[in-house]
């Protein structure tokens, strides 16, 4: 009843249908879902005009609970599905939620190419450093030396930096925050959704059940404290030496490029010219 009262104000959740969620108590995904909802609400975007697309994993369950046009796809493939929607309906707001495994491992190639095209899609990567849904295996963002069920002696694979990849591949808005810095995360998500072009916000999220439990942070608060302790603003990050950076991560806005042309607009422009040329050729 309490939930219903809270939700009646916004009406973005399918509370009568699919609640409670599959997420563990203490999981960070819910806060990020809240941030997405508030962004859409504050930007006054019509719900009918929002497509929320995801792949497979804990965070990819999110669309099922939200009252938009929702598409829960296959593992790693949310971005190309979203690309198809955007090509056909450039007027729609297309938001993709993905995890670190979904978006950066199996979906890594699609991630790079969506950034490259600068197609107007917002990607929210919820990074919990581990494969949650399959029970705690090592992921592309698991820090060196951290434990997972497929890294019982500590992770030896250097982690992937989603921010660097997105920036290098051409995304025109790139930001990172954490669940501890949820107000900041919400601000970035809102900016990303309002941005015209490919935007990526990585939010570090707490997973007490798996990453936390396997790495000495069983209590959700412990992991939030860990984020607080290790997040560094971009300005301070610049001042740190190589060794001081180990185990820390920079948060903030890394790219805000308003001048890169957006893909569906470029396509529209190209088509218009081609039509004109075809007409002139005929007459």
């Amino acid at each position, binding site marked *: 009843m309490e939930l219903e009262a809270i939700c009646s104000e916004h009406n973005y959740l399918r509370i009568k249908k699919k609640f409670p969620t599959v997420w563990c108590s203490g999981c960070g995904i819910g806060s990020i879902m809240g941030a997405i909802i508030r962004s859409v609400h504050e930007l006054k975007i019509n719900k009918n005009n929002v497509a929320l697309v995801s792949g497979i994993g804990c965070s990819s369950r999110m669309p099922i609970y939200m009252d938009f046009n929702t598409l829960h796809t296959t593992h790693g493939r949310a971005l190309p599905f979203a690309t198809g929607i955007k090509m056909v309906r450039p007027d729609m707001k297309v938001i993709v939620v993905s995890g670190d495994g979904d978006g950066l491992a199996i979906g890594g*190639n699609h991630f790079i190419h969506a950034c490259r095209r600068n197609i107007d899609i917002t990607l929210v990567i919820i990074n919990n450093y581990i494969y949650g849904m399959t029970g705690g295996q090592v992921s592309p963002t698991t820090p060196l030396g951290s434990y997972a069920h497929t890294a019982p002696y500590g992770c030896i694979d250097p982690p992937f930096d989603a921010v660097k990849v997105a920036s290098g591949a051409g995304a025109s808005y790139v930001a990172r925050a954490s669940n501890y810095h949820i107000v900041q995360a919400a601000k970035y998500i809102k900016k990303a959704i309002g941005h015209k072009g490919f935007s990526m916000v990585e939010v570090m999220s707490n997973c007490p059940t798996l990453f936390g439990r396997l790495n000495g942070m069983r209590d959700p608060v412990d992991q939030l404290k860990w984020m607080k302790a290790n997040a560094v603003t971009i300005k301070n990050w610049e001042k740190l030496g190589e060794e001081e950076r180990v185990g820390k991560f920079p948060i903030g806005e890394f790219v805000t490029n308003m001048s890169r042309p957006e893909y569906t607009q470029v396509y529209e422009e190209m088509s218009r010219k081609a039509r004109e040329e075809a007409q002139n050729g005929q007459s």
Partner: protein
Amino acid sequence: MAKKKIERGTPAFMQGNEACVDAAIVAGCRFFAGYPITPSTEIAEGCSEKLPLIGGAFIQMEDEIGSIAAIIGGSLAGAKSMTATSGPGFSLMSENLGFAYMTEVPIVIVNVMRGGPSTGLPTRLSQSDVMQARFGTHGDYTAIVITPSSVQEIYDLTIHAFNCAERFHTPVILLLDEMLAHMREKVFISAIEDIEIMPRSYPKVPPEFFNPYEITPNMVSDSVPFGEGYRFNVTGLIHDEEGFPTSKPDEVVAKLHKLRKKIHLGRKEIMRWDEEYMDDAKYAIVSFGTAARAASSAVQKARSKGIKVGLIKLKTLWPFPGKRINQIADQVRGILVAELNMGQMIREVDRYVMGKCRVQGALRYDGNPLEPEEVFEKLLVLRATKRGK
């Protein structure tokens, strides 16, 4: 829809892949996403040129996995959508092909077959993907697989493929092969108003009463694109009539039955095959695609020598006209299956013959077409085989 014959119209001379593009556009295709692969590239090239001119969208994706994902997204957003590929790309598409079956999204996938396995024979002829087209993705489902055998049939059956996809809310696979794709032939193109085109079905109820996967008498639900105020959920998980994940046994069974029954109940609209000289036939050749051209010539030759043989040319492999094959098995002494693989459709034919007559193959899998002479020779072997062999 399936009954109406497309009237003969203006003649044109075109390549198989070109005919596929033109027919797709006539059928209403407004979105193509693809990845280059021989021998299907002319389809992507044609779409990249023509779609922007008519307000459609084209995109070259980073791989075939992304290509099929994009057209499923495009179809959900309201555009009739197509992709084209060949064996290796078709293998990559398998996963999301399953997604389209599960989520009942209309799309058309053209597989211009080449030799396999793996990279195989990129520029040579083969029909070795027919079982993959039926069973390629995991899980239980029913497929619609269409096989033209001339450029005219590519034109007509591409339209049929789009109509079936829209009518039954399902992926439709159009199997071409290297020879058909690149051959040039005369095609008669009807005036657009004479061609029957299946539009998208829109719901008759307001959003609050809309169930995207409603179980109906013909097992096909109404659909509506994203962005029209209906805000439903689409998932590759087994789902209930509202589109939400379920693992309740009765709902699981209902969904799987829906996927199978909608095709089964609509099979008369979907199935197409041609028969030649079957009235008095004592032998029959069953064939499809490029191989059917050699089979047809072999039948002519046999008839000129007084051998009573007829031809069954399959234009849809699935749903399979099993009942008709079973009837023919009562009429003839033997059936020869001509195909360019090590024997795939022959199993399906054999399954419906039920031991009532001999079944032998005229098979070729070296990358070259079957010659009419070879099929004729195999026919003589079939005739000479003693009963029970």
